[in-house]
């Protein structure tokens, strides 16, 4: 279906864009995550923020994989597809490429997106398919009841690692940057304002946007992000990145500065020359974003949140449409009879 006419303010009692509210994006399905799960906060924030994007639920598609995050799709009153484990970015690639008119959101988790579906994630990012990917990182397999995940810290004791995990974890931000993602950000489930602000920027990005959301699993990995997300420690440990601004944190007492050999260091603001304090630049070379992604070994020490990188690159579906357009201009709209008769032919009788 190539020429879907999209009535922005269609019939069926659909209200006009601009008058929509959170309710218009909330489905009638009962939400069934564990009480206290970080997913509730993310869901509420996404439902609340959607109306301000100026899109209609009819033109929005949520795609998810398997895991606790996978249920997200059912709770949004948009079009939605709950796929199989790890494949949401591939499903979404088909959706977004076939239909550039749709707003496509992928909801995944650290197991779904980084383990079984790692390949699809990196390829969706490098292709720059027009989709917003929300990766709920709780550093644990929740739905399967508590095995370590590809973001669990080394030494993690879980049901499948009674002697501690010997796996080295992924750094999701660095992975996305390495995959040539054009938009890479991190935020935290319980910081509604920050979450909304990052989502807003992701939504405005043309192409693939990758947002890692630190999400607390209060049943199998409770408190994994406490040092980042809970007051008062969070105040000391959150390094909030803002484009064009010096990177300060800990109530502006500390900063990210350039140390020996160009290495990034954490320092007291008074201990370094103001010229050595790093000014955040989301559009520049990926090396800064990569270095910022590696400031912390995990969410137990000062850690960057916010947009790491945002650059422009051709959007995959648009590039494909362009090829079709150019071919059609050059060769004319394909004629089936002519195609069937192409090559050497001969006539009998």
């Amino acid at each position: 279906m190539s020429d879907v006419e999209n009535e922005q303010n269609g019939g069926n009692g659909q209200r006009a864009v601009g008058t929509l509210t959170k309710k218009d994006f909330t489905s009638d399905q009962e939400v069934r995550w564990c009480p206290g799960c970080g997913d509730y906060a993310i869901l509420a924030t996404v439902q609340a923020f959607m109306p301000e994007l100026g899109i209609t639920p009819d033109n929005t598609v949520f795609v998810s994989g398997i895991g606790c995050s996978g249920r997200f799709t059912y709770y949004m009153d948009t079009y939605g597809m709950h796929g199989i484990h790890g494949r949401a970015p591939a499903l979404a690639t088909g959706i977004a490429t076939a239909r550039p008119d749709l707003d496509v959101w992928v909801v995944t988790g650290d197991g779904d997106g980084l383990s079984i579906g790692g390949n699809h994630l990196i390829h969706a990012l490098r292709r720059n398919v027009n989709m917003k990917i929300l990766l709920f990182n709780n550093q644990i397999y929740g739905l399967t009841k508590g095995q370590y995940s590809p973001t669990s810290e080394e030494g993690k004791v879980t049901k499948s690692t009674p002697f501690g995990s010997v796996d080295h974890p992924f750094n999701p931000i660095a992975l996305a940057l390495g995959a040539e993602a054009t938009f890479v950000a991190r935020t935290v489930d319980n910081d509604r304002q920050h979450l909304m602000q990052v989502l807003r920027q992701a939504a405005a990005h043309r192409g693939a946007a990758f947002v890692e959301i630190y999400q607390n699993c209060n049943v199998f990995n409770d408190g994994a992000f406490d040092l980042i997300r809970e007051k008062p420690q969070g105040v000391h440990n959150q390094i909030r990145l803002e484009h064009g601004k010096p990177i300060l944190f800990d109530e502006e007492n500390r900063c990210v500065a350039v140390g020996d050999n160009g290495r990034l260091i954490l320092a007291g603001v008074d201990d370094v020359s103001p010229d050595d304090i790093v000014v955040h630049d989301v559009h520049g070379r990926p090396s800064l974003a990569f270095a910022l992604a590696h400031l912390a070994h995990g969410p137990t020490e000062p850690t960057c949140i916010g947009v790491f990188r945002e650059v422009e690159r051709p959007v995959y579906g648009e590039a494909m449409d362009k090829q079709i357009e150019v071919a059609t201009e050059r060769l004319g709209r394909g004629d089936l009879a002519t195609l069937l008769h192409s090559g050497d032919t001969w006539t009998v009788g």
Partner: protein
Amino acid sequence: MPKDVEEKDRIVIRFAGDSGDGMQLTGDRFTNATAVLGNDLATLPDFPAEIRAPAGTVHGVSAFQIQFASEDITTPGDHPNVLVAMNPAALKADLHLLQKGGTVIVNEDAFVQRNVEKAGFSANPLEDGTLEGYQVYKVPMTSITVRAVEELGLSRKEAERSKNMFALGLVSWMYGRPIDVTLNWLHKKFGDKPQVYDANVAAFKAGYNFGETTELFAHSYQVKPAPAKPGTYRNVSGAQALALGLVAASQRSALSLFYASYPITPASELLHELSRLKNFGVRTLQAEDEIAAANVALGAAFVGQLGVTGTSGPGMDLKAETIGLAVALELPMVIVDVQRAGPSTGMPTKTEAADLLLAMYGRHGESPMPIVAASSPSNCFDTAIEAVRIAVKYRTPVILLSDTFLSNSSEPWLIPDADTLPTIDPGFATGPNAGTEFLPYLRDENLARPWAIPGTPGLRHRIGGLEKEDGTGDISYEPENHERMTELRAAKVAGIAKDVPALGVDDPDGDATLLVLGWGSTWGTIRAAARRIRDQGKKVATAHLSHLNPFPSNIEDVVRRYPKVLIPEMNSGQLALLIRGRFLVDAKSYAKVQGLPIFAEDLEQEILKVMAE
């Protein structure tokens, strides 16, 4: 003085040489000239998986076989009448296939001591009596070619490369093939590289003239055009026909074609064919892996396009979970499986049809889906349209089975009138279907659910792999509901039987006692074998299945009507297992898994044996 022309009804030629000798191209060009001449034909490209296996070795031999005739034929022939061997290895590999007393044309220059040893001969086979009883033509192809292109200033290596065109020219003369078809093609192919073009033309003409002027060849042969229905024809391979069929289905349904695939032999041809057809609105995506390809196609289907993915056996294994998702989502989608010899990597360039049970049952849970299979290269066109028709009408993934032989092989095709091809109605949902509500799993009279695509106002819904409540599509773990949904999915697929043509039986007198039942690319072999049996005054009935799931509704009548049922397959008896299991008839399996189409003469012998039992 013009030489004598001897008339023949049918000829089988096999071109064999090193992988780098250009035998596939030679065969392909000979085929086109033969097609344009109006002979009926069938081809069998037979090449190794290695792009360039060690030169001069037997496992590096690449061959192309063609049967052409002044009558209707259906197979590339069991035994060549003529073997063109470009080197000792080719002779070693393929001599055993040659008909007793057949013709061998060798490139004499290649039969030097080193090559002879490399091929595994203890002595030069041109001299030690190996070829006794055959009609042997020793032609110094390399040196004549080098001499013919001498003036063009090519290096010796480049000059030698044209020797396949010499061979083509020689054989074209022997069998009276039109030269303009080949010359036109050379012009199209190499027109912008004058030196290469000139060399190929010179070599081709040298070969042609060599046949005409030397005394080596006493006469040439003529095979008259085969009688054919009036109309315009072209030569078409299975891969081409499949691509054309998918595009035709896209055009006739007004659904944009979205083909997602991962490179794999022998299915890549389909990706190549379709990726050129951008001006037909065709989207092609070379995915990061087989799983992604299936998911991309399924995603495209969800939003209202004709989602198709194609692969071969190993890729089918990987796509299984996604196909299962498509079964649960009940969305139209076509999965093309160009079967090859397995298990595992198996023999990637060799044919087999051993994925039938995989297509039937190769997913977890109760996961029924329609299966259609192509029977000949040109039949891939119709099969593609049929797969799309079923997928769209019944909102279901459909597996289309082709195989390496069908994909690579070619035959003349009466080009259908594009305007009379069937139309396919996508029938998108446009509004509520239950009062003011929209229920995504409310079914129509065919048990198909609505196809409500994103962007349609008011029809927002969520679907997924979790079991759904009948009608609403909401998640449900209710025991009776799961059973009902399982039955509904099965009944929907089973119901397609009343929407497909009855199984036709070819039983000229109606009183044969043996039925040969086939599916897929054995069609040609079965027809040829039946003809041999009937030529002996004996009776045999044949029937061929295009729909493997569900079977046509009259199949039970057919298989029960005959006291004996024989099922030849390029697998270990998969259809036989289904037929025996479903209908409790004592069907006999004739299984062949040698990476090659079944020979008509072997099947003939088997039929005679079963008749005598």
